[in-house]
């Protein structure tokens, strides 16, 4: 009895979870494996289309012989790269048509022309012509003939499904794609974006944790950049930073802080000299990182604030009794209490910044030294139309992420052991 109950419970559970599991598997897990598959192939955007046999029907009347007609089929393989096998052809004709000179590949029965054209190589073209005559001597209606469309069928390999594999994509990704540069850019973007957003998150959380008038309002305002659509924000920033008539440059010019406008999003390097040392700062990349920090520090803020509010008040009271200064309280009580949250945040933000596509794409499109790996996936796959390369880059992303996670957890595990 108990056993059947457990069985029904199991069955119910499977019924309840199945739809969700199927959907997630087919849309998320399956594509990840498909990605690995595609990355080992030479596929371009145009190869994705499945090749089709096509026929254009042209009707030519023969002068002086109204009972006769010539029909020309312009046959072709729609694909420039793939062959189509076992092409079959079918067309119907009115009930009084008799065929002349039947092509050996074809048969004509019941006013139905059937042909087997065999295999068509890529780019195949043929002008296939048939002649008809009416058997009752009546005139031919060309319009009626034209309205009947021929049917073609054929088998073709889906280029995605064949088993020709190559390592060319990976070779290209790793050796011909300025890979080191890409990796460094992605790393700068990810690391400084993550650290920056966490630092600002700590500052703002510490701030909102004090009591002041309008605190709840402040909390909502701080979350605005995170909840608003990225498209709107990116274009607003672009206008704000525009070198010609952007607000920021105009303001700086107005106050004579700068003499010529700075193209914050379009300039790769800027020379800065501090104490006689000349630095080359990656300007556009820095700007993009700023946007990144601006947009995602609210998340760190939310996490850290929740943690701060859970710190027992007694700790601070005890510190007050001991005569601790505000900075001592911050470094000795607050910071140790939030390290766990920070380490989780660091991992989450690092992973997501590493994969961030929209922000950079909308702000610079990957130009002026802001080409990160995710941008490269898009550029390879859709701008250069090399799907295989795009896939290979995204596989590299996944591998790097897995490596990062592995080392991160190892490091974290060690620290936990020491404690």
């Amino acid at each position: 009895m108990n056993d059947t109950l457990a069985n029904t419970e199991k069955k119910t559970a499977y019924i309840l979870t199945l739809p969700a599991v199927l959907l997630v598997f087919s849309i998320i897990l399956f594509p990840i494996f498909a990605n690995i598959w595609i990355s080992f192939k030479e596929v371009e955007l145009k190869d994705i289309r499945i090749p089709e046999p096509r026929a254009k029907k042209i009707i030519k009347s023969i002068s002086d012989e109204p009972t006769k007609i010539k029909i020309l089929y312009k046959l072709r393989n729609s694909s420039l790269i793939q062959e189509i096998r076992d092409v079959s052809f079918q067309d119907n004709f009115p009930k009084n048509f008799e065929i002349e000179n039947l092509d050996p590949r074809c048969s004509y029965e019941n006013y139905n022309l059937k042909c087997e054209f065999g295999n068509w190589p890529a780019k195949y073209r043929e002008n296939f012509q048939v002649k008809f005559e009416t058997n009752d001597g009546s005139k031919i209606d060309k319009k009626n003939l034209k309205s009947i469309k021929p049917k073609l069928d054929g088998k073709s390999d889906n280029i995605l499904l064949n088993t020709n594999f190559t390592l060319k994509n990976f070779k290209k990704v790793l050796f011909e794609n300025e890979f080191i540069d890409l990796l460094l850019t992605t790393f700068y973007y990810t690391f400084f974006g993550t650290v920056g957003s966490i630092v600002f998150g700590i500052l703002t959380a510490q701030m909102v944790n004090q009591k002041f008038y309008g605190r709840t309002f402040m909390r909502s305002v701080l979350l605005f950049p995170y909840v608003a659509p990225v498209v709107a924000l990116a274009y607003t920033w672009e206008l704000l930073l525009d070198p010609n008539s952007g607000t920021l440059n105009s303001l700086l010019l107005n106050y004579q802080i700068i003499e010529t406008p700075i193209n914050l999003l379009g300039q790769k390097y800027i020379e800065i000299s501090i104490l006689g040392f000349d630095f080359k700062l990656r300007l556009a990349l820095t700007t993009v990182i700023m946007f990144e920090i601006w947009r995602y520090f609210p998340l760190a803020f939310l996490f850290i604030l929740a943690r701060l509010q859970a710190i027992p008040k007694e700790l601070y009271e005890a510190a007050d009794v001991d005569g601790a200064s505000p900075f001592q309280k911050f470094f000795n009580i607050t910071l140790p209490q939030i390290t766990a949250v920070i380490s989780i945040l660091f991992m989450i933000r690092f992973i997501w910044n590493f994969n961030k596509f929209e922000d950079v794409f909308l702000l610079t499109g990957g130009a002026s030294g802001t080409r990160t790996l995710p941008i490269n996936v898009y550029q390879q796959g859709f701008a250069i139309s090399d799907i295989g390369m795009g896939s290979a880059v995204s596989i590299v992303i996944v591998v790097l992420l897995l490596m990062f996670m592995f080392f991160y957890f190892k490091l974290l595990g060690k620290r936990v052991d020491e404690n």
Partner: protein
Amino acid sequence: MRTKNTILFSLISTFFLIFLISIWKILATLQGLSINSFNIEIIFIFGFLISLAHLGVGDRIKSIYKSIIFSSIFVFCDGFLIQKLPIWYNVGVFLILYFFTNKISKYTFIGLKEEHSTQVILFDFLTLFGILFFSFVILFPFYMMLITSFKTQIALLVNPLDFSINFGQDIKDLFKSYFVIFKSYKFGKYIVTSTIVSVGTVIITLLFAIPAAYAVARLNFFGKTFLSTSILIIYMFPAIVLVIPLYTIFSQLGLRNSIEGLLIVYTATTLPVAIYMLQGYFKSIPKELEEAAILDKLSWFGIITKIIIPLSIPAISSVALYVFMIAWNEFLFSLMFLDNPNSFTLSRAIQYLSGDAETPRQYLMAGSVVVTLPVLFIFVYFEKYLVSGLTAGSVKG
């Protein structure tokens, strides 16, 4: 010790005052006043003197009178020494000074003698500074977005610093950009598409997620722990990795440029977090209620619809709002899957609009306002629900 603390206090408060006045000057410049310098030196001297004078005067004058006197002196000198500006600007300066003197009124010579007093002062002013700084930095782009959408092309080119809006003009002229984007760029249609996609995603996600979350929370079955842990791992998988295979598959199936295609992808990407959030809440519902229902011979369908759903309305609303927000803001998949203007979502439409260099920026900003307003409105109105959703689902973003 006392002298050092006095000087430090005066310096910190003066820097704070400079910051306040500078922000006010920026805002005034943006209203069309020609202010070409922050005059930091003069304000520094005044601020320093006021801070010192405040300490020196102490309790001898009531603090309200003290504030008013100091503020008036500052405003008078500001107008006299720096430049003459309209009354509203001076009123603003007066209010800032009044606020400032009120803030420093709690510091006295006696207080400065205490231990750590400079650190306390620094902390207090840093908090104040932070509040204003972050409000300014966050709200300014939104303010600019809104204002730009009300301007005309010529006005923007002639003086990019003039943010003032002439409310006296005809409503039609004021909202011209909005009329244009709805008339010539079919934004009405895009709003409908975006709404259908977002609401559709919410409905389908809930339909799939509630039963699954219930099973994970309550029932015992083989693979349960695997399922609940893999949910989060799957959720961490980046969208950019899915894009190419989904694009190829959707192309071959003819699902590109269709709302169905977007619905499938959005639902699949939001399902894991929805299940995760809901099962956590379902676990907190007392089991006894369901046991009673089982005795009443209610099926699992009955249990879910009659007991679980009515009891977890708050959790379901926060999931719904969160999913709505994700679907409404989503850009990557709509960029990849939609290339026919007839099936654009709002985000994609704005990106398409910006692709044309000829598009006037006020149209772009009007579009941005249109796409931002619903989300911000929902956020402010349902903040309590959304914040819990954000915290739980924050691994995404």
